[in-house]
């Protein structure tokens, strides 16, 4: 088990390498990279100057080598807007994003499992139909639409909750739900499918043949087996959750790393974008490993490693 853990951790640098390489390629694919670093009205001479200064005239392999060297030293360049190393600006904004993503995750797990379970156990009834419809809407509606709708309803019309910013719990609610609803819908659908699948299994009848009441059948037999599928989908959702936080942060002006990156994209502050992407990739890689280990604790049929 420990060996497998170390093996997974050792893969993280590889993942980061992949991510930064993709960033490197995309930067150069989308036209002249220099254009990101100069203003709209720069003269050809100024452009050439910047090009030489930033090393864009060097052969590609040299550029790549220098780039990797910089990345290892966490040097992503200086932020154009703030003038300081980009990397320094980001870590302190990460907690806000994690707070938002955690809250959204908590909501999506709670609501998702609740809706999914009710739907499955009351399959075919009106309750099932209602839950399934809400779930469908939740999965179909885009984050920005939900966000804006919630703001319109709760902030503008009802004046119950603040529309933007951070501070107390009341600031967390709207962005949290906006981000969480989509994932809640996803969790609900998987939960419903998993429970329905397990209810039909032979071992559920064995449990009933032993005299187990439905409560026991559910908590001991159905739930533990359904958890496998549900945890899987939650685990797979976490990277999306962290990524989706980006849009949510933009809508609600939430002081997290995602919103910061979005602003940097609009400001063409490339260094921040680059650093931000690497940090997000790192977060995703780590959470994936944690989820994998939780998963193998739940299902004894999984044997990790060789």
């Amino acid at each position, binding site marked *: 088990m420990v060996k497998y853990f170390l093996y997974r951790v050792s893969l993280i640098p590889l993942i980061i390498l992949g991510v930064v390489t993709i960033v490197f390629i995309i930067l150069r694919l989308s036209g002249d990279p220099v254009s990101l670093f100069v203003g709209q009205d720069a003269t050809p001479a100024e452009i050439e100057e910047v090009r030489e200064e930033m090393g864009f005239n060097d052969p590609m392999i040299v550029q790549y080598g220098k780039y990797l060297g910089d990345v290892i030293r966490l040097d992503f360049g200086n932020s154009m807007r703030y003038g300081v190393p980009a990397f320094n600006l980001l870590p302190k904004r990460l907690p806000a994003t994690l707070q938002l993503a955690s809250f959204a995750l908590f909501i999506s797990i709670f609501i998702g499992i609740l809706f999914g379970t009710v739907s499955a156990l009351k399959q075919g009834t009106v309750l099932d139909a209602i839950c399934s419809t809400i779930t469908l809407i939740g999965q179909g509606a885009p984050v920005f639409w939900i966000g804006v709708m919630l703001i319109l309803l709760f902030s503008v019309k009802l004046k119950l909750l603040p529309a933007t910013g951070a501070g107390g719990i009341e600031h967390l609610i709207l962005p949290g739900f906006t981000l969480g609803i989509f994932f809640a819908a996803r969790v609900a659908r998987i939960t419903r499918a998993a429970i329905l699948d397990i209810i039909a299994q*032979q071992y559920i*009848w*064995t449990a009933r*043949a*032993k*005299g187990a009441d439905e409560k026991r059948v559910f908590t001991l037999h159905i739930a533990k*087996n359904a958890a496998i599928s549900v945890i899987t989908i939650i685990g797979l959702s976490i990277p999306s959750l962290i990524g989706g936080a980006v849009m949510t942060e933009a809508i609600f002006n939430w002081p997290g790393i995602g919103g910061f990156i979005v602003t940097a994209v609009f400001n063409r502050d490339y260094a921040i974008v680059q650093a931000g992407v690497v940090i997000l990739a790192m977060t995703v890689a780590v959470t994936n490993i944690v989820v994998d280990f939780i998963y193998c604790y739940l299902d004894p*049929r999984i044997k990790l490693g060789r």
Partner: protein
Amino acid sequence: MKAVNGISYSLRKGEALGIVGESGCGKSVSVKSVIRLLPPKSVRISADYIRFFERDILDLSTRELRKILGNKISMVFQDPMNSLNPVLTIGRQIIEPLIIHTDISKDKAKKKAVELLELVKMPDAVKILECYPHELSGGMQQRIMIAMALICSPELLIADEPTTALDVTIQAQIIDLIKDLRNSLDMALIWISHDLGVVAGLVDRVIVMYAGCIVEETLVDDLFYHPKHPYTKALLKSLPCVEGRIDKKLETISGYPPDLIQLPKGCCFAERCKYNSKLCIEKRPELIQVSDTHKVACWEYVKGVKQ
């Protein structure tokens, strides 16, 4: 669809009854309906009474019925791999009936589980408790199912084709095990099978079912040596004989079982029966007593009717 089309039988304390018939004849469903182990929304059970000792369990509430299941009446299913919960240890699953029906402590329950595993001749009983179902073979899993069924010392054990999913040598072991257990515990047994050979050495009485009806009911030896119903006779004839000629063609029963949604108004077997007559096709024969211990549902045995 009538999966079971009017059956009635009784079982004495400590007696072993075999229910045989081909797939789809209703043997499993009829037994499961006695203990209501069928999806309630999909089935309707109707009977005059279902008596267990002095109680009519037909009208028992679900809660009351649950007190009996696993406790006084236990069941072993056909496919042991799918009948065990894959994410719980064997130990936890075996002691479950004790936890549900008694106040016993977990430690005492575990000790009892080890006793039962030894009773069903499982090696390394203590280690097995910590294993998961997928780590064991089919034969071992079925022994565990049996141990689980016996842990509360039931009055009746229902075995629904418990050896069908196992290979022949393991089948023989399980059958021997059940024979030994019956000798030592005073337990009634209902053994459902489509395999006549299996029930031959195991049970006291046999019921033969076809298309949801009982067609013959008698002592096991009588069934094999003096079968009366044409279906039973045809079944026995179709058994390959080891001593016979090698080039002899195997006997079959021509035709197909009737569609349970549209049962014929006469005898269900008439269409495939060598001796069928107009009466057989028109009217369904009742199960009648032809001797102290032998019942059959066939117009051939109703005096004065066919001649």
